[in-house]
């Protein structure tokens, strides 16, 4: 602190002026505030830590705005077909207007139900939506995001299958999800066995059947899988159940739940994944909202919070957090998980999103994603620009293409032309090093597809040294 500068007292976030401070000190009976830090001894710093500020709204807008301006984003700066577990969907403006109400934004976990019925009712509604979408009867109040939700789902299965020692999972599950599971499981007492895929792009059923035995805790499959291919849940479920194992269905593009057979209907015992598609912005990867649903008989093994219905002293319907003996604040080291803070506000956004789209809108949106992606897929085939779908099994709004040329330079080249064409699969799947993962949503107008095709045609023309398509 420069000697000349008087110490800061007033600050917009500190409602204690000079006079109030004096009164408080007098009431407490100390001379100075440092007396209250006496137990810290010489740990107390003499000088403030050197951090810029204090900044007002204007300075913050200037500083953070300059950082934001160093990013490029889809729609504004380029055409993007990035997906891979994070999807660009329109977010209705209503959501933010409601989320920003202080009564939702600035409240703690609803441990005191009489003062938290709004949050509790919304959690109960979120849980209900997830049961409807997953086809399973119980869903929790949220997990951090898809990958840790998946890890927690496997841990839950482990708790339910205490004596078994093996988890079998499809390599079609998102690489981050598998990596997270590996981290979570590293000190636990089971092995992870991964199973590859067949030429259709689906998890290899024969290999799966071979890997699953009576030591298997659970079988986990993702659909649409990381390559965008729609799996049939029942294949994995049947294999699992035949050996007394549980079946876990993973979903990274939650919008697909509006159109595709639900995990529950496909025989999954547990469904988990990421619901970012329901009204959350991309935000460079978070905060998103994980979900986890299961069967009624397993509810006491679930991680995370659950809201339940009850009555108040007058017999009126009310909601409370319940079954909390599963949780760390009661059960401590024997809890079903260490999770405490979850993603309540994100879950609320998803609840709002689902109520706005509703029964008809969500289905229509899912179909329009399906169709738009199919239009890109078909255009790639039709124009013969060298990009070909890699797998023949059906997909939803994302699919894998073989680029027909080295992927990294291609992506850099397209980036320079304002197109983020997709995610290179090679680093996670060396056997797919010539492949790209491309997602198409309602935020990709037909113009995006046309521009992409035209760009590929120009590259082709440059390469072959003549106009392309040649017959045009």
């Amino acid at each position, binding site marked *: 602190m420069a000697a000349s500068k008087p110490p800061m007292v007033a600050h917009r976030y500190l409602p*204690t002026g000079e006079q109030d401070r004096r009164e408080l000190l007098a009431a407490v009976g100390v001379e100075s505030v440092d007396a209250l830090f006496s137990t810290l001894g010489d740990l107390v710093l003499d000088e403030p830590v050197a951090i810029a500020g204090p900044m007002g709204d204007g300075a913050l807008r200037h500083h953070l705005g300059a950082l934001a301006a160093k990013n490029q984003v889809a729609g504004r*700066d380029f055409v993007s077909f990035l997906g891979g577990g994070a999807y660009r969907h329109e977010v209705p403006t*209503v959501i933010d207007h409601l989320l920003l109400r202080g009564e939702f934004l600035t409240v703690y976990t609803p441990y*005191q139900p*009489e003062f938290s019925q709004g949050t509790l009712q919304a959690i109960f509604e979120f849980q209900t939506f997830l049961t409807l979408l997953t086809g399973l009867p119980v869903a929790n109040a949220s997990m951090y995001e898809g990958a840790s939700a998946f890890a927690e789902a496997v841990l839950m299965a482990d708790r339910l299958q205490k004596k078994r020692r093996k988890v079998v999972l499809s390599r079609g599950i998102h690489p981050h999800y598998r990596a997270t599971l590996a981290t979570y499981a590293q000190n636990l007492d089971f092995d992870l066995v991964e199973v590859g895929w067949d030429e259709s792009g689906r998890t290899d059923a024969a290999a799966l059947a071979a890997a699953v035995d009576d030591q298997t805790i659970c079988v986990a499959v993702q659909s649409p899988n990381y390559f965008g291919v729609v799996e049939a849940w029942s294949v994995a479920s049947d294999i699992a159940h035949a050996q007394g194992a549980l079946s876990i269905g993973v979903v990274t593009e939650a919008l697909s739940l509006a159109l595709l057979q639900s995990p529950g209907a496909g025989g999954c015992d547990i469904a988990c994944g990421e619901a970012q598609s329901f009204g959350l912005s991309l935000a460079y990867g978070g905060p998103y909202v994980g979900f986890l649903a299961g069967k009624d008989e397993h509810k006491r093994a679930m991680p995370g919070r659950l809201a339940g219905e009850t009555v108040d002293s007058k017999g009126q319907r009310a909601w409370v957090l319940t079954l909390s003996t599963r949780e760390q604040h009661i059960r401590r080291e024997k809890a079903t998980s260490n999770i*405490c803070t979850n993603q309540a506000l994100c879950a609320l956004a998803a609840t709002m999103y689902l109520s706005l789209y509703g029964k008809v*809108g969500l289905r229509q949106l899912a179909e329009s994603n399906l169709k738009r992606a199919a239009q890109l897929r078909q255009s790639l085939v039709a124009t013969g620009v060298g990009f070909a779908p890699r797998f023949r099994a059906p997909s939803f709004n994302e699919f894998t293409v073989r680029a027909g040329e080295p992927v990294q330079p291609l992506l850099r080249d397209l980036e320079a032309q304002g197109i983020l064409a997709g995610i290179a699969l090679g680093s996670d799947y060396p056997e797919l090093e010539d492949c790209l993962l491309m997602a198409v949503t309602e935020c990709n107008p037909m113009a995006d597809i046309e521009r992409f095709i035209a760009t590929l045609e120009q590259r082709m023309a440059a390469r072959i040294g003549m106009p392309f398509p040649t017959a045009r």
Partner: protein
Amino acid sequence: MSAPTPAPTPTENDLRTPRVAWQHEALLFERSRPGRIGVTLPPSEPGEPATADLLPAELLRGEIDGMPELSEVDVIRHFTRISRKNYALDLGLYPLGSCTMKYNPRINEEMARLPGFAGSHPMQPDSTVQGNLELLWELERALVDLTGLARVSLQPAAGAQGEFAGMLMVKAALEARGEKRKYVLIPDSAHGTNPATAHFAGFEVKELLSNAQGTLDLEDLERAMTDEVAALMMTVPNTLGVFEDHIREIAAIVHKKGGFLYGDGANFNAYVGKARPGDMGIDVLHMNLHKTFTTPHGGGGPGAGPVAVCAELVPFMPAPTVEKNENGFYLDHDRPGSIGRVRSFQGQFGVLVRALTYIYAMGGEGLMRVAENAVLNANYIRKGLEDLYHLPYQTPSLHEVVFSDKHQQVHHVSTLDIAKRLMDYGFHPPTIYFPLIVSGALMIEPTETSGKEELDDFITAMRAIAHEAETDPDLVRGAPYTTPVGRCDEARAARNPILAWKP
């Protein structure tokens, strides 16, 4: 402090019972009416293929029974109505101990929504997200400066996940030393996530009993700290709001045996900017950005739990980290010693934007004042209530103070009753029945963002309740009376769980 107006009391004809049509707002699903919709979808494109041509019937589902049909105004009214059944920080003091319910600045929200941040995809090439990476870099630097530790991983999604990453790093470091240690020491006053985390990280928990001052007994610790112990996990200040004044001796004992000192930084608000955990001998510390750094709780999250580590633990940090070279910033995935990922992508980025915004809004000196005022306010409340409420530990308080219901129990009034009655006075109750070492704990953390007059109102209300407990204990036991619903039957919910609406 003016004489308290007594809060409302119950009567036969309780007018507070809301009877207006919408005060019993039904569930979304119950409000549904056929034919409604809350969005306008773009018209279909010409030449679109048909769904049936793209997906075989067996992969499809039918209409989802029970999904609601609502218009936009229905949705606005539904959520506006139910929101009003919440008490909120924006309405007044929310003195939940250990939760640091401090004012959530609105500029944080504006910054997190800047299109350049909110619209960036986590898989974009580093060259296109230099602003994000620089922000992460700046935040890591600020947290390094505030903690005095070597580096900070911003990946963990919340405090508990920060603990988890931290303990995995401890484990990895020990393994790198060729050691495999079995135990983690945790004081009985610790938050539940500490033992739960230690368990999931593959350790066995040994509980340390607190002494009469609510702190650790150095001799006990010396005895318990064997070379089978990986770490001591301690909360600083502890959950009584008490700073372990022997912390450097504690660190020495732990370090002498080759263990790590894990700091639970959920209570960082007590000394942020005023002292540094690194100087105390702490090796690894998670922080709750949704406490000390003002990102909103939002009814239970999202938060973020960055974990700061000493130099020995740096090689084991979760991947990716943010690094800088002559081309700019980049995500470094190539960290061979890393414990791996604890989640997808790069963490709760939007929360991290808010935290950095707050840090700059305060500046270094401002953060020092934060800790000072948080501590001053807690001590003021302590002083204002200690004659009427039992103070189980006389040790000096930092940012929170823990009372018990011992004096009120004489009249058969419990902490729960006091908590519920506070609602009638317009305050959110403190944290109750935690820490577990205090029977009937009332854990009060006012934070620095409430002014003296609000503290006075709170003290007045608490004193009025103490008086009611003596003179009319039934009144307190029947509370609350003025909330949207009366006391809720939690036992019934657990006995017969109804966890979702069914179509």
